[in-house]
């Protein structure tokens, strides 16, 4: 299978899964912005997604994309390190047009996936997961079940905690670096590029990626400072991690 056996094929898998994940981020960011304007509106979206079959299919698809992207990233890195050889250069100077992000995609990717773990713990484990468990007939606390669609509540609860707000900011920054290289690189790997479009794709990528990250960051800021509709939510207890530190 050429998607596994050839170097170009392996990169095609990376770029297609990467672009699909960027499209998902675009959707997720647009959805999050609603929370700044209307907490009820946001909770309606959460209700609409929840543990419905289409949301579950979507989640499974996303999980598969992340796994594929992650596994291939490690496979490619191992092969590339082997191709580089065991003897390293004594002096290395980075040429001007080589971006820092492009040389550190794996490290940035690892930060992104750690952030994803934190994110699943903060939100998914309180929202979709208990609903799925409940549907499967397992026992879930009534208090948890009552809040499975209370996305706004969880946003307010998480981001009022400065530690979480800071961690999410670092996560978003790493994601920005990862995607500024990832976007045009994916297009280049698919071969939809030439001398003229090179600059255009880079600009298009930078705009899309910056908008995505700013959108996500706006919700973190709004949650932390209690701006917009998120300010109307009373946070009863700070999130779990913050109990000892704040």
């Amino acid at each position, binding site marked *: 299978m*050429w998607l596994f*056996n*050839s*170097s*170009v*094929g*392996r*990169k*095609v898998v990376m770029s297609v899964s990467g672009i699909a994940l960027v499209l998902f981020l675009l959707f997720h960011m647009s959805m999050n912005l609603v929370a700044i304007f209307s907490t009820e509106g946001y909770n309606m979206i959460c209700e609409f997604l929840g543990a419905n079959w289409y949301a579950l299919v979507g989640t499974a698809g996303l999980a598969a994309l992340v796994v594929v992207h992650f596994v291939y990233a490690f496979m*490619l890195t191992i*092969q*590339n390190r*082997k*191709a*580089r*050889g*065991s*003897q*390293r*250069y*004594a*002096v*290395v*100077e*980075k*040429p*001007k*047009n*080589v*971006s820092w992000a*492009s*040389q550190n*995609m794996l490290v940035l990717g690892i930060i992104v996936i750690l952030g994803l773990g934190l994110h699943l713990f903060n939100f998914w484990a309180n929202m979709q997961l208990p609903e799925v468990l409940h549907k499967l007939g397992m026992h879930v606390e009534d208090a948890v079940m009552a809040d499975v669609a209370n996305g706004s509540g969880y946003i307010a609860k998480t981001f009022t905690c400065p530690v979480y707000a800071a961690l999410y900011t670092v996560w978003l920054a790493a994601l920005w670096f990862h995607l500024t*290289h990832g976007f*045009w*690189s994916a297009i*280049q*790997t*698919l*071969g*939809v*590029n*030439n*001398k003229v479009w*090179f600059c255009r794709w880079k600009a298009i990528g930078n705009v899309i990626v910056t908008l995505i990250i700013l959108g996500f960051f706006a919700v973190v800021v709004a949650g932390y400072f209690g701006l917009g509709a998120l300010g109307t939510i009373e946070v009863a207890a700070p999130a779990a991690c913050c109990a000892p530190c704040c």
Partner: protein
Amino acid sequence: MDKNISFTLKVWRQRGPKAKGAFETYQMKDIPGDTSFLEMLDILNEQLVNENKEPIVFDHDCREGICGMCSLYVNGHPHGPATGATTCQLYMRRFKDGDTITVEPWRSAGFPVIRDLMVDRTAFDKIQQAGGYVSINTGGMPDANAIPIGKDVAEEAMDAAACIGCGACVAACKNGSAMLFVSAKVSQFALLPQGKVEAKKRVKAMVAKMDELGFGNCTNTRACEAECPKCVSISNIARLNREFIKAKMKD
């Protein structure tokens, strides 16, 4: 007239492919600025021979930037700090008095060191032999300009054909990828009607050979393009990807 400079030279010495190498330091005195880098190594080798020491082994041939034989990773750059030039076109006036200049061989699993600064680049010949040619059924001489080719296409094919196969792209790449070389060789034919006939077969064969020889996967860092002495563009890599994906889709 350029000034004379004195500097410290750190050169990688290695007896053979399996031997363990190490840097050796040489003091160079009063080297004229208009000496080329390779001439400077000639001067050093002459001194070493006179002292009954082994001269430094390095590749070179035409010494005018077209044969692709010279290599050398000078101060962190393949072909040294100059852009759009090979090592033989690098002159000592680029360095300052008192500098330390570090000279290493190309380092990549695909290019094993033969001795000192000389590496084995036959992998490129093997990739080229896998498909980097056009088959012609010989017959009567075809008329000139019988197949019209647009000026822009001809220029682009010519730019790709400027690749001298020196291997600086592999040396510069953190992934040891040969994509810039292979893409230039694929592009120079894929762009022209004469090469289009075998385009699918060619791209598949050359990429397969490149992978088989253990070159890495391209991650588009653009280091190859920056260090290429012939300024071959990574738009060729996009073309290679396009040709390869198209060929595989057809199967």
